């Protein structure tokens, strides 16, 4: 049935509609939860379960078709291009939050602090908070969040974050080493490299959890601690979510490697996971420099 040199076109896809229903139920449930309705959490579980089921049967179909030899080189190029443009869209998602950080630090906060050279004093400073001085990190003139006095301690770069930087950079090396193993059909190198990468990935997430716990319990630093807390937790939180997704992605690739799904010339899933992993790695470097360090 597999005609070599032919572009495979699937028929009768049931996965997407299941995914749409799942997403709808999940988000409607989340909305209900936020509005204080009791039915919200139940809907969220059902929706999330439906989405996980959808992903399972969707990926299963792709794996079946791939192993069945239905995909020619051109199909693989489509997958690769699709993954690259998906990662590009993710980059822009993070750009929105980095943009919020730069805007507040470089424009909004100086204006709030009364610093507008050449054009006089900003009226917000003049009329609302004329004693506010712009010193980063800050939770704003209203001292939003923090401990009882509205104080908080910022996250230092050279503790856990520096260790996490090393962990992610090392994981970038191990995943590349695994790829080299795969390319020369060295299964042992592939599996050890992948297993190390997965361990490092989940280790990162664990340490991030320790850091968050410290922030909440001892430093007065929460999501609600003004603009510093908002940008800190939203940027590192979305990044941590992406690391978790990437680590699960790599774990699946590891399981598939153990089952012998990949060969040196057919391993799109491995490459996609590795690209995704490098993407979360690069985002982390931006976070380390602009959120923790500077």
């Amino acid at each position: 049935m597999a005609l070599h040199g032919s572009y495979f076109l699937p028929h009768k896809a049931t996965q997407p509609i299941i995914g749409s229903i799942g997403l709808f139920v999940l988000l409607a449930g989340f909305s209900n939860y936020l509005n204080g309705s009791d039915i919200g959490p139940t809907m969220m579980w059902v929706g999330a379960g439906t989405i996980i089921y959808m992903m399972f049967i969707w990926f299963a179909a792709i794996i079946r078709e791939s192993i069945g030899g239905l995909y020619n080189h051109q199909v693989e190029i489509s997958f690769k291009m699709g993954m690259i443009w998906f990662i590009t869209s993710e980059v822009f998602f993070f750009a929105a939050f980095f943009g919020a950080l730069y805007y507040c630090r470089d424009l909004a906060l100086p204006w709030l602090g009364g610093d507008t050279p050449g054009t006089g004093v900003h009226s917000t400073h003049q009329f609302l908070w004329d004693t506010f001085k712009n010193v980063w990190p800050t939770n704003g003139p209203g001292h939003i969040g923090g401990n009882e006095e509205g104080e908080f301690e910022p996250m230092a770069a050279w503790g856990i974050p520096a260790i996490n930087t090393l962990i992610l950079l090392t994981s970038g090396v191990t995943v590349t080493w695994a790829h080299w193993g795969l390319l020369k059909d060295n299964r042992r190198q592939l599996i050890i490299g992948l297993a190390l990468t997965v361990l490092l990935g989940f280790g990162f997430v664990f340490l991030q959890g320790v850091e968050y716990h410290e922030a909440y319990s001892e430093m007065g630093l929460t999501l609600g601690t003004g603009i510093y807390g908002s940008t800190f937790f939203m940027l590192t939180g979305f990044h941590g979510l992406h690391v978790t997704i990437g680590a699960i992605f790599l774990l699946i690739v590891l399981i598939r490697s153990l089952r012998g799904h990949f060969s040196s010339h057919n391993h799109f899933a491995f490459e996609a996971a590795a690209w995704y992993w490098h993407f979360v790695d690069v985002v982390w470097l931006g976070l380390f420099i602009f959120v923790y360090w500077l």
Partner: protein
Amino acid sequence: MSVSAIHDDHHDHGPAKGLMRWVTTTNHKDIGTLYMVTSLIMFMVGGAMALVIRAELFEPGMQFVDPMFFNSMTTLHALIMVFGAVMPAFAGLANWMIPMMIGSPDMALPRLNNWSFWLLPFAALMLVSTLFMEGGAAAAGWTLYPPLVLQTGAAFPFTIFTIHILGVSSILAAINIIVTILNMRAPGMTLMKMPLFVWTWLITAFLLIAIMPVFAGAVTMLLTDKFFGTSFFNAAGGGDPVLYQHLFWFFGHPEVYVLILPSFGIVSQIIPTFSRKPLFGYSSMVYATASIGFLSFIVWAHHQYTVGMPIEGELYFTYATMLIAVPTGVKVFNWISTMWKGAITFESPMLWAIAFVVLFTLGGFTGLMMSISPADLQYHDTYFIVAHFHYVLVSGAVFAIIGGVYYWLPKWTGRMYDERLAQLHFWLTTLSVNLCFFPQHFLGLAGMPRRIPDYALQFAEFNAWSSVGAFIFGFSQLIFCYIVFRCMSGHGEHASGEVWEGASEHGLEFTLPSPAPYHTWETPPNVH
């Protein structure tokens, strides 16, 4: 590059039977039809909301609705028309036409294509359902500016998540379109031989991938500001409500080009066919489209001249915005030059295309007026801006879409539409759209604010005309629905493969039979 196609079920080369065909289909033509029909339904829903607005504004004083509901109508009308009507119509045209135009058997990622579409009805359901929630639907305008939008009642999280679902849908569709265009072209179909419609969609898809995630991020910040105590848009916490405006318009300005670039493509297909000449300045059209796409990313704050920006910002955004007139002018002159000394006939698609060139240019000029920041202080948030963007989006984008539907409907259905009815539809629409929106320029210049359900007495006459125009426009579209559904249900003369005289020289799609078979280009054509 491209090679022949195989299917996972070899006994079934036609469409599946029953309603489930439409739910599980992976066929680009089926999905195109689903997009187009959804778009038409949402066009009617959004249009009904516009008529509520115009009925209320027919005369001074409060008539039918309370101010809160009026504001919900302006908000939902815009969201539905942008995300429910115009973008799905373009996605539908892309699905139908791009594979046929580049000689590909289907879209590159057919399952994903199904999902891109099937997210839409759920997003639409979620958005429309907010009308019936406690506190009413979002009423802060489609831009959803804080702090006003944070006062929305139970509808708030539903509105935010609607944006997220629409974003996922758009991003997946954009990925699919880029991959199809870059990876699925027939042998010989080089990039610089692609029809302009394909080119404009390629650039539109790049824009979508860059902007939809930013919008998703911005509304996520709204959500966390309301429910999780963040301070992104709260000055007391060190944030800034204007930050939202920057994020929104970084999305919003390229977004309005998402709504117009494929229109440029459609018009660039129609005008050469009915002028019986090749498109004038093809490569300059490609470069102009790319330039417009690039410029769209660096002009966003011209939507925010009155909010308070450093003078350097006002100057920069003024000059950068004016630059857009250059590539846009290139396009307008190229369309006119294509018609110059052509053997022109005026079938319906051509009428819509010519009306597009004239009326879009008018809307472009008012845009140029507003790009000048000191002058914009007068125009900002008045009916002048309402007139401007309806000229570019209704007599621009919507006219191009309707023209495109007339142009390709015989190819899709195998039937010619009723030309006399179509001409009636065109003239009623074109006259009424001007009656509706032209007076709004004067209302705006005289100082009538937008998004207010009542107005001072001196604005009465122009508003009455505008409302009459709106109602004629709205009901004229029923003719369009009738024409389309007549063809879809197999009435009317049979269309030839070429459909229009000489059209096969202007596009691969017109070398196929009409109606186009369920699967086309399973063996790719050779393009010379």
